[in-house]
């Protein structure tokens, strides 16, 4: 005999339509206009940063770089909702969130320029560096959350991963343990519809990525990731709940990767320009700007000041980046262990000698 034993529903949240008009009445505790202005500024800065970084790469002044073009509202949205003493674990496309957390433009440029010092954040000391191996960071987030819970602290952890990442066991193992241990973690799945050349539809038959949470028995929500209001709001609710002991939450943020996967990629090999054009209508930046114009008296002057300010800040960072001296060669040994084992002393000396005789290592170029 058949009997129903469990039921589930996945909801979608959005406040603004693509033009920035309200879809209905906002909840009373929607993000303050000050917060949203701050968010807008971060989104603008992020987009400028992305453009500049791609340009640095194209001109041989930086390494491979993943732009977050079009996804700014996702990362700025959840990071606005974070407290300073929360922890953030990025994937690799969350430049906006990192800026919001206090990772400097210079640090980010150094990182993508191939310098380990870019991960020695002077601001958020406990935030994790980027995670290149997909989805592995989800597990670190649960470990951090376990430590927070053990110490009885009221902090939360935010970890990001992509739509592609949800296919990897790490992601699932992380949401599962977060559920059963009731850990204060917010998982943000940035569904930008592509994992390099693999479309979202080829990653999973699941109609939504939010429903992955059901496998872990945790709550989730699909959010319009191009709507800063919705992202900030959903994240803030989830984080407040998590800090209060209410357990983990998963947000599927619907957005679109407007650019190539990275500067090493050519998206035209695998997707139509048409699809991309369509998504320009959803651009999160004009959308939230329209909202600010309508509801916060955002003026042309405000805009001009913001743009100038951001550009100046960025150019200063680029200047500092290009002027940064390389690390000493022995740095590759000096942070390997707290105390370098005697066994490696010879090698450490060897690299110092090598650098002095052959500073450019020219024969591999």
């Amino acid at each position: 005999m058949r009997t129903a034993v469990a039921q589930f529903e996945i909801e979608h949240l959005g406040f603004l339509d693509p033009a920035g008009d309200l879809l209905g009445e906002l909840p009373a505790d929607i993000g303050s206009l000050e917060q949203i202005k701050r968010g807008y500024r971060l989104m603008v800065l992020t987009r400028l940063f992305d453009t500049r970084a791609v340009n640095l790469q194209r001109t041989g002044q930086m390494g491979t770089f993943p732009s977050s073009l079009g996804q700014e509202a996702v990362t700025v949205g959840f990071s606005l909702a974070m407290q300073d003493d929360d922890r953030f674990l990025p994937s690799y496309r969350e430049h906006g969130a990192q800026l919001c957390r206090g990772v400097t433009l210079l640090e980010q440029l150094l990182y993508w320029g191939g310098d380990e010092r870019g991960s020695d954040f002077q601001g958020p000391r406990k935030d994790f560096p980027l995670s290149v191996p997909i989805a592995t960071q989800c597990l670190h987030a649960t470990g951090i959350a376990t430590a927070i819970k053990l110490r009885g602290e009221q902090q939360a952890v935010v970890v990001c991963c992509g739509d592609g990442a949800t296919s990897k066991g790490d992601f699932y193992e992380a949401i599962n343990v977060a559920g059963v241990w009731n850990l204060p973690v917010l998982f943000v799945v940035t569904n930008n519809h592509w994992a390099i050349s693999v479309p979202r539809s080829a990653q999973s038959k699941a109609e939504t990525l939010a429903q992955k949470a059901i496998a872990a028995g945790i709550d989730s929500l699909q959010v319009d990731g191009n709507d800063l209001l919705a992202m900030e709001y959903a994240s803030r609710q989830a984080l407040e709940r998590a800090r209060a002991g209410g357990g983990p939450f998963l947000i599927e943020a619907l957005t679109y990767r407007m650019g190539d996967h990275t500067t090493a990629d050519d998206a035209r090999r695998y997707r139509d320009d048409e699809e991309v054009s369509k998504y320009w209508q959803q651009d999160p930046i004009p959308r939230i700007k329209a909202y600010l114009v309508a509801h916060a008296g955002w003026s042309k002057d405000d805009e001009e000041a913001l743009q100038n300010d951001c550009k100046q800040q960025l150019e200063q960072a680029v200047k500092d980046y290009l002027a940064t001296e390389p690390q000493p060669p022995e740095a590759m040994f000096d942070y390997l262990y707290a105390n370098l084992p005697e066994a490696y002393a010879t090698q450490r000396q060897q690299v110092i000698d090598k650098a002095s005789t052959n500073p450019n290592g020219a024969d591999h170029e």
Partner: protein
Amino acid sequence: MSEQTLIEAVNLALLHAMEQDEEVVLLGEDVGANGGVFRATDGLQQQFGPDRVMDTPLAENMIAGLAIGMAAEGLKPVAEIQFMGFIYPALDQIISHAGRLRNRTRGRLSCPMVLRAPFGAGIHAPEHHSESTEALFAHMPGVRVVIPSSPGRAYGLLLAAIADPDPVVFLEPKRIYRLVKEEFDANREPQPLDVCFTLRSGEDITLVSWGASVVETGEAATQLAKQGISAEVIDVATVSPIDMTTILESVAKTGRCVIIHEAARSGGIGADIAAGIGEHCLLDLLAPVIRVTGYDTIVPMARMEHLYLPAVDQIVTAAIQTMEFE
């Protein structure tokens, strides 16, 4: 101090570490009420509660990832992998994160975790329960690999591994978990990492081993002594990084060396030691350095595993062959 087996010594070290430092937490499969399938964590959840002795869901990759997150937050997690044959899903986290976190953040974050696992063959266990793949971990920068060979050493080295500010893979030779009881001073003092221990002094030949094979190596030394051959026995203990200084000094003295390990020969740690000796002691060598090892095969199932393990007579034969080399 009463006599203890190796597994009891592991348990005691965990107890003392947890008493001493409340940042020490344990996690793994069945480490709680069950006290671990070998009883390494027996009684500890009862004493310290489920917050500090955590039964995890069944996923080794997750266990390692959890431990990394905890360690980065300043806890000192000691994670148990139930058998080394199940450690491989955790390998990505160890090589890609645990061994790198300090380096890639230029010291901002670090990873003071211990990953314990019983390893080795010889207990007639099912498939996948007889692995000796310590060499895989010895090839991972930023990670230490430590292997005790006796109860006292297990106690002291495990304390050291837990105290160490960097990740340590701590492999316990399960074949000798209960082989002997040893009296040792459980004085809460760590024993040094990164050094070999000379278990027996000798003049004619150096025998180098670690883990359970130290037992057969010691027995071989005894038999050799009866034949008038004086063997020095070195327990490598920290198999990564290797303290070549102690080994080279010994071989410089004896001029002869046999290396004994249970792991497959190719890609084994014996090759590293032999290569190091060849590089630094060539002119001292009176005979080739020979390795007595497991074969380059899957460890056979129970009915044939005794044929896989390096036996005392193989070590004796290799030593005599080395002595007679011209």
